[in-house]
């Protein structure tokens, strides 16, 4: 499978996960969105030396992995590019903040090391929370939740269509590179001399495709607003889910 095909497979796999008939997937998207945003807000609000408090916040992703029947290993594989970048942010803290905090045998733990770990954990937990949201909620439902809290329609439509167009772009790129590789069998990758024309072709084809999709939308009554339908009522179960997590986040923050 080529890299482009693999990327496409990953996007489709996320759609499949979000479409599963699981307990977590059936929670109202607005509730899941609020819980996710609250979790990220509480997580990043921990003090840079509050490592113990932050570690306790790990209970939320752990619980969601179980409730959503999601594979932790697959998640790590999927986030293997993002997570190192997130971890990289705090890498220089030990060099700037060298104040000793404690000594573990021969090893002196500095404040910079603790702040590095908390920064990394904040990043990892935030990325995991966002991942768990999209793995249990389709893009259409997330967008409908955004509209419920009055995020402007144009912005929500941008998010939805960007997500959809990524697949189109990857498909077009896959076709172009397949056609190229079939006629350039001894080359590894695409020769730099044709990067420009291939990118141009990709842009033109993607624009044509996007135009056709847009025409299809307007022909079926689209006038700038996506109507998602589905269940818009928040049930008692949803309210309970929101209350339990809100109370837990508050408790974890205040302990």
């Amino acid at each position: 499978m080529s890299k482009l095909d693999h990327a496409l497979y990953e996007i489709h796999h996320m759609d499949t996960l979000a479409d599963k008939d699981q307990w977590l997937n059936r929670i109202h998207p607005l509730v899941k969105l609020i819980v996710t945003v609250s979790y990220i807000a509480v997580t990043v609000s921990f003090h840079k030396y509050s490592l113990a408090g932050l570690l306790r916040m790990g209970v939320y992703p752990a619980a969601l992995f179980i409730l959503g029947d999601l594979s932790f290993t697959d998640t790590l594989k999927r986030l293997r590019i993002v997570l190192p970048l997130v971890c990289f942010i705090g890498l220089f803290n030990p060099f700037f903040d060298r104040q000793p905090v404690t000594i573990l045998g021969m090893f002196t733990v500095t404040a910079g090391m603790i702040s590095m770990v908390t920064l990394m954990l904040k990043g990892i937990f935030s990325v995991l929370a966002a991942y768990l949201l999209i793995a249990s909620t389709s893009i259409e439902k997330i967008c409908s939740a955004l509209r419920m809290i009055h995020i402007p329609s144009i912005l929500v439509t941008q998010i939805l269509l960007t997500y959809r167009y990524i697949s189109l772009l990857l498909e077009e790129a896959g076709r172009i590179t397949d056609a190229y590789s079939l006629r350039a069998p001894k080359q590894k990758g695409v020769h730099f001399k044709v990067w420009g024309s291939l990118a141009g072709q990709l842009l033109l084809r993607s624009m044509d495709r996007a135009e056709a999709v847009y025409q299809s939308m307007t022909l079926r009554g689209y006038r700038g607003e996506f109507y998602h339908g589905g269940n818009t009522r928040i049930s008692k179960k949803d309210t309970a889910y929101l209350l339990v997590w809100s109370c837990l986040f508050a408790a974890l923050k205040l302990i």
Partner: protein
Amino acid sequence: MSHIHISLEHVNYSYDTSHSVLKDITFTAREHDAIGLIGANGAGKSTLLKLLVGLNLNYEGSIRIEDIPVEKNTLPVIREKTGYVFQDSDSQLFLSTVKEDVAFAPRNYGLSEDEVNRRVEHALANIHIEHLRDRQIYKLSGGEKKMVSIATILSMIPDIILMDEPSIALDPKNRRRLIHILNQFEHLKIIASHDLDMILDTCSRVILLSNGEIIRDGNTVDILSDKELLEAHGLELPLCMQGFSQISH
């Protein structure tokens, strides 16, 4: 006398001033008509279909759908009455699941969720693809995508169905199924296609286009059996009329 749904009078259209794509197109279509739009590549078939739903405007002449002129401000009404099936199903289907895509149009027209669900079920049942309801679009085969594309327009309950090369890329079984479904529809249908055998099976009337002009408008069998006429305009007799001698040859 049946009601006139589509009326074109002296329609001219060009993408730029130097080259006319459609020249002096005049015809009417009534309810329950099944019209095959045939012609060689570049004859103007797709352009003509697009004019009917206002995807191309700035034409000269008159185009009226159910007596409503095709203009920018009338497009929502016209498009509610007209279902357009794209040649490429991947352009038509852009949401994640079949149900979401089929429900897209009814939701845009402000129908209640109960009515939307009813229409989705009805559209899927109409072409016998209820089992695809919760399937993800990317997992569908080419034939299934075509059927779902048709369902997306049926959920609008259109009076008119326009199809651009519907049988392209379908295997024989799916093609046969498509023909069967098209023959069930009582809507006014205009089908642009090179598949003359399908046109023969589904349409009672044919409009032959060549270089943007209507060359002939009449009975399907009369036109599709006229070898000289077809060959003069870049087409050939339908395979079923070519005879065994030519097939063996």
